[in-house]
């Protein structure tokens, strides 16, 4: 079995048959993490506990009693999920050194099924950002920066400059998780998605990024950004694997009152052959300003792909799309201002040395603990929540949110099954170029194609589609109806099979993979 293998198709079988052991898998991932340290994808590597978990998994396999398909599988978790005994920082000074006493529900579920938790991945501070560049542990580097595909296409300025300065961002805010999956250091990773934070880096890193329906997966233990929009996100290398993860995580959690009560049945994805009964919607408003001609062409090509295979492809309209960014910013900052109020240094986290008064301690703690981005959003949010502004901004934004959600309802009830849109405006920008604009500007630009799905609570998935002219991944997005993940993933899987997105060619990975075991090709990669 290779690190590149699909979970369901290869690795699970290999583990069961004993062709590879959980300890071996774990060790190889840990070694690869070490040799790809320059990516800065991980904040904490939990080597000891991971190896212990792997050992326990191995015992179970020896007894012929594995807990399920995830038993022994190395996974990574974004550092805004609580993990008992392992530092949870949210890439912020406020929580540096914070060791949570409890596991997030999704983390607990993975551990209960025998998954091996390799470590916590890097992100934008408190998940605010679209580049994974604004955390206190530094930016995450897109593994594709070091791929043969990118290097071949990029014009080297000089030999030394090449590796250091032309590296491209992962996108964000779940950049660490996307990079971890993309560079084969784990088989799947958890991210979070509030305005596109799982799908955006998935697109830039060439991996599958699933945003489930709001209310399907528990948020208990996910440190919130916007409670009414956040969902745990799933990052994998193929759509089948995303379905496996979804099956192990979805379902009502009594600890999260926003999860639906209906019982969830995990599913296996059928191999769709006949798409003639499908109606694909192409929302015209997603031809957004700034959309690269490359992606526009790819989007069009994808639409033709469906058409030629017999599906019905129609142009649709989501007229309130242009208002969604502004609406999102009002609601997001308002919730942020509220959610961040608990960080005062009193019970946990960073506490300033100021001893004059409680108030001055609070103020100093928050100034020292939060970066500019967080503080900026708190100030904006408080402004919108002031009594004199509440109706004008917050309530208005709630109303616009309803209109945006209704746009989708109308389209889906008119016979459209799935929407097909771009995920990002362009391929990944070089870091130096990206940081020319501030976080707020970048977020406003980059969220435009993804955050309407968060406003409406709909499931959406990024499927890696092709490489750009610069040799970097470009993905396309599918948006489905609430709680229709099975249909969404089935279509995504079909599309994935058609496009045959190339495997990243990373020196480091190849070095690690040329070992005892044969390099096997999975069904999903060419």
């Amino acid at each position, binding site marked *: 079995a290779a690190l590149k293998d699909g979970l369901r198709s290869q690795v699970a079988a290999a583990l069961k048959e004993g062709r590879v052991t959980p300890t071996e898998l774990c060790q190889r991932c840990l070694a690869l993490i070490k040799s790809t340290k320059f990516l800065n994808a991980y904040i904490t590597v939990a080597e000891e506990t991971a190896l212990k978990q792997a050992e326990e998994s191995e015992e179970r396999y020896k007894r012929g009693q594995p807990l399920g398909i995830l038993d022994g599988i190395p996974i990574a978790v974004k550092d805004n*999920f609580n993990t008992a005994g392992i530092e949870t920082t*949210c890439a912020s000074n406020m929580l540096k050194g914070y060791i949570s006493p409890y596991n997030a529900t999704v983390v607990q579920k993975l551990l209960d099924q025998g998954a091996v938790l390799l470590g916590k991945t890097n992100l934008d501070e408190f998940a605010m950002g679209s580049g994974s560049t604004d955390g206190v542990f530094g930016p995450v580097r897109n593994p594709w920066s070091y791929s043969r595909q990118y290097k071949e296409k990029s014009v080297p300025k000089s030999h030394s400059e090449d590796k250091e300065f032309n590296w491209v961002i992962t996108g964000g805010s779940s950049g660490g998780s996307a990079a971890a999956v993309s560079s084969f250091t784990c088989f799947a990773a958890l991210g979070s998605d509030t305005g596109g934070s799982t799908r955006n880096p998935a697109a830039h890193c060439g991996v599958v990024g699933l945003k489930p329906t709001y209310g399907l997966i528990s948020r*208990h233990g996910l440190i919130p950004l*916007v*409670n009414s929009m956040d969902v745990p996100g799933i990052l994998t290398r193929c759509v089948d694997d995303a379905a496996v993860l979804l099956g192990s995580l979805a379902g009502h959690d*009594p600890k*999260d009152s*926003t999860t639906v009560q209906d019982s969830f049945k995990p599913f296996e994805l059928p191999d769709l052959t006949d798409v003639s009964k499908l109606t694909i919607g192409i929302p015209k408003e997603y031809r957004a300003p700034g959309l690269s001609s490359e992606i526009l062409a790819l989007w069009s090509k994808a639409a033709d792909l469906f058409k030629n295979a017999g599906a019905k492809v129609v142009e649709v309209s989501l007229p309130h799309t242009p208002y969604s960014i502004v609406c999102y910013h009002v609601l997001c900052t308002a919730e942020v201002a509220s959610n961040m109020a608990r960080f005062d240094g009193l019970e946990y986290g960073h506490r300033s040395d100021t001893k004059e008064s409680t108030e001055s301690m609070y103020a100093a703690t928050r100034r020292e603990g939060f970066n500019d981005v967080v503080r900026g959003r708190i100030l904006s949010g*408080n402004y919108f929540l002031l009594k004199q502004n509440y109706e004008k901004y917050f309530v208005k934004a709630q109303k616009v949110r309803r209109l945006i959600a209704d746009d989708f309802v109308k389209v889906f009830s008119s016979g459209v099954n799935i929407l097909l849109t771009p995920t990002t405006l362009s391929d990944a920008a070089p870091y130096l170029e990206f940081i020319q604009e501030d976080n707020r500007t970048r977020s406003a630009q980059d969220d435009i194609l993804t955050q309407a799905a968060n406003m409406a609570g709909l499931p959406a998935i990024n499927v890696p589609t092709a490489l750009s002219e610069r040799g970097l991944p470009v993905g396309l997005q599918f948006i489905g109806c609430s709680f229709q993940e099975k249909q969404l993933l089935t279509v995504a899987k079909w599309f994935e099979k058609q496009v045959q997105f190339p495997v990243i060619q990373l020196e480091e990975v190849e070095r690690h993979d040329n070992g005892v075991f044969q390099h096997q090709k999975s069904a999903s990669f060419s």
Partner: protein
Amino acid sequence: SSLAPWVPVVGLEIHAQISSNSKLFSGSQVQFAAPPNSLVSFFDASLPGTLPVLNRRCVEAAVMTGLALNCSINKKSLFDRKHYFYADLPAGYQITQQRVPIAVNGSLSYSLCIDSKMSQMVTKTVRIKQIQLEQDSGKSLHDDTRSQTLVDLNRAGVGLMEVVMEPDMCCGEEAAAAVRELQLILQTLGSSQAVMAEGQLRVDANVSVHRPGEPYGVRTEVKNINSIRFLAKAVDYEIQRQIEELENGGTILNETRAFDSKLGCTVPMRDKEGKQDYRFMPEPNLPPLILYDAKSLPANTNHQQVINIDWIHERLPDLPSVKREKLVERYGILPEHSFTLLNEDGLAEFFESVVKKTQMKPKKVIGWILNDLLSYLKQYSLTVKESPVSSFLLADLLNLLEKKEISSTAAKRVLAELWKGEGKTPLEIVKEQKLELLQDEKELEQICQAVIDGQEKEVIMMVPG
């Protein structure tokens, strides 16, 4: 001014701690005087990533209370966040119900004595604006000597019902009577133990005065009132203060004042930096609270998952006002008597117990309960439960009286002896002290003759006339 042309206006905001095993949104225990920070869950400490889960019992308590106060129960109510920074508020916000509370538009009837002899009572009503569910805060103690603040989060997150009474009251006595009645109702329902000394019932008074026919004056909020007695004092003091201020040409500030029980006056509280903007926002982690009644209850619902208002209504116990009516009807006692009976914890039960065990008519028994037993209890600051004279003993004594085996005076002497709690029965005491009434006429004649014989002088003085 002896004419007192001012119209005082008093409204109340009452916070009643819900009597429940666990807190409003988390599973930690509710207990008075536990070691500091021993009843704090991750959610109570506001650990990041924790979420509120609504406690069913707290909702039931609020519904019961709303029904007992004749409110409309909102079948859909909402939760909000109220933001401010304080050491005893770990999340930086309180979860409350600002937009749509659980119950609205109710009323509370209470009675007052017209005079001090308790011989005439008048019934008044105060409108209940609303009842809302909200979290209690923790406690902070300021240690000035060491320049530190000590924070105990045991109370943080305990469920509260805030009961808002409209400004329909006019003085301290009315406010006190209204609160007393509310206290009795809550205790009868069991929705709150409502003991002010343990912080389970907290009252803030809103006081203003105006001239008749003119709009309401500026109001002040009076806090830090620790007993019903102090409530009456604080309100009356504040009314007087405002009248004096205005009559001297001054103005009333819209401020918060604290009642100083030692000095018997209200003082301005530390300025909280002007008006607070609480930046209310809907609580996104709690869906709207939906309640059902028999009509709206969907078929095939799990009884555990829903609250049926009608079901709760059917099971409400008799409220104090109903209990009083029943006592008056059943036993023929006066309304004032029933008030006193219910005002003292356990006294009504004691009375009924005695009535059951004795042949003496309830109308006569009540006198012994209210005049004799109660005054002993008051004298020694005892509760009914602590009474050394049980209902059995008192009933025995009253039976002796009823059978004319002793006189009324003798009975009072026996009661005084019983009060010592030495374990003697009334009969034993009567025998000991030779208090039996003599029924034999011949014996009586002999005694009388002996008395007359022994008092020759006085007899001679009396006979001629």
